[in-house]
């Protein structure tokens, strides 16, 4: 009788090992990757690790800055939040510094750059020169093919772009390889990716609460001008990442008047940071 009980317990234990417990798997990031590839999403985040200011005495890397929304001087080295909404050929990219935000809106083959000033409970939209006019520039898809998709700032573009499949990443830019996954003691799980290139070494950890992406952390290491190894960290708190585009963001604010330079534009940018 006792032996039968031991056999039953052993059989139960063996069965338990085969049950699909909640273990981290590489599949959790796939859902978000698919949203990015389909250009159908709303992403809202907060960057709590402001980047060091880039000086123009440094070597300027076109892949680093092209198409990225530049930081206003008054907000250099400050943490910021942001939102990206995409629906097909329409894309809204906002970087918000609290009192002021910088916005880039793409509608088919035109792009608009404007800013939002927070006043009490509402936001007042203005053109980049402070007036009511906003310039329509031509969208250049070849720039994204060369330098990658812009999700706002360079850091955010890099961390979100790292999720894209290798076939979507321009030649010469680092391709992040899956390293592993696991569970943490606080109930979160993670997936790790790593890339090594001439620009340095970087690892990115994507944190999940169940299947919901809640945080992205990156550790990168490169050499400064003196040859010393320097480390940088970046932490994005993901507030929202869903497959439902916020359609209200994909239309130009009503108070702005469009000045169309999209047909005259021959590669010269006017009052914008376009694509």
């Amino acid at each position: 009788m006792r032996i039968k009980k031991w056999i039953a317990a052993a059989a139960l234990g063996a069965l338990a090992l085969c049950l699909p417990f909640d273990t981290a798997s590489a599949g959790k990031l796939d859902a978000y990757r698919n949203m990015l590839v389909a250009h159908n999403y709303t992403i809202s985040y907060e960057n709590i690790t402001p980047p060091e200011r880039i000086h123009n005495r440094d070597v300027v890397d076109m892949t680093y800055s092209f198409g990225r929304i530049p930081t206003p001087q008054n907000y250099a080295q400050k943490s910021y939040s942001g939102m990206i909404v995409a629906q097909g050929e329409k894309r809204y990219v906002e970087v918000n510094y609290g009192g002021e935000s910088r916005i880039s809106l793409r509608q088919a083959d035109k792009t608009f750059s404007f800013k939002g000033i927070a006043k009490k409970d509402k936001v007042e939209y203005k053109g980049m020169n402070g007036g009511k006019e906003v310039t329509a520039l031509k969208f250049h898809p070849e720039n994204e093919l060369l330098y990658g998709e812009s999700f706002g700032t360079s850091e955010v573009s890099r961390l979100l772009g790292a999720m894209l499949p290798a076939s979507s990443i321009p030649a010469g830019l680092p391709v992040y390889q899956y390293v592993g996954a696991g569970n943490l003691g606080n109930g979160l799980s993670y997936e790790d990716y790593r890339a090594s290139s001439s620009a340095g070494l970087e690892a990115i950890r994507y944190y999940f609460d169940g299947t919901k992406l809640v945080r992205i952390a990156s550790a990168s290491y490169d050499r400064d001008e003196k040859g010393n190894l320097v480390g940088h960290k970046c932490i994005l708190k993901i507030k929202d990442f869903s497959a439902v585009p916020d359609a209200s963001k994909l239309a130009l604010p009503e108070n702005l008047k469009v000045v169309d330079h999209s047909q005259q534009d021959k590669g010269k940018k006017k009052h914008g940071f376009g694509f």
Partner: protein
Amino acid sequence: MMNKSMRLFGAVAMGAALFLSQAGAEAAEKDAAAVEASFHTPTCVLMKFSDDTRFKALESNERFSDLVMEKLLESGKVRLQVQTPINKDVEDMLYNERSQEFIDAKRAIESGDLSAVFEGQAFSDETANTFSTAEQGQIITPSLTGRIGKENEAEYLIHGTIVELGKGAWEDMDFKMGMQVGATVLNNIPGLGIFGSIASMAMQNSHKNDEGFGVVADMRIIRAADGKVVWNKRASVRSKKTKNIGISIYSKDSAELNETDYVKALEKAAGTLVGDMVKDINEHRLSL
């Protein structure tokens, strides 16, 4: 019987008197401690400001640090342990303190042990990357701040960053607004007729352009014992002078910007930062 009652009453009265005097002495001691606390002047040391601009050759950070030191001494709100800014590059000091951490972390990533990096203390939300990017509530390597504090017998370190320095020109919009209001008034005064219209037009076409230096600078106060940034403010100031002014047929150009204007801009920024600190101390938003 009467004597016994009187003796009992006397004993009770004496006991009460003793108790009350003891309580009074304790209250007086507490009051004295509270008064002493309110008059406590925190000991600080001013570290040389960092310069994150393109113009490092100007050594603006050294001049700016001296200006901030002057303002701090004038304020009387802090006791500076050293009467000159500590002439050391804190970012270099921080790098040296963390260089082994970077080497170990890089090795860990290369070997695949990413949790050693991402779940370590350096990756907590509260840990600042550098002095220049440290925000209020964040912590800068306590082993470094503690050492500096101990060497100088200071409870707090004061440090800052010159984020941006530039020369600019801009139209004085207040002047323009004032002229437009004046023009509207002149145009509507009955009886002035054509003279009112001419004067109004002249005012509407007036302009005043200023030029000057702009400075964006941060200042932060760091508690030496635990490296916590307890206060952090940014000043964004312009020091302007009129470049040219034109009202009708009158116009005047001013002299070019010079070093005096540049120093004025730095002084204005230093005054703004220290002024904000004093205001926050006085209004109990900053407790040192």
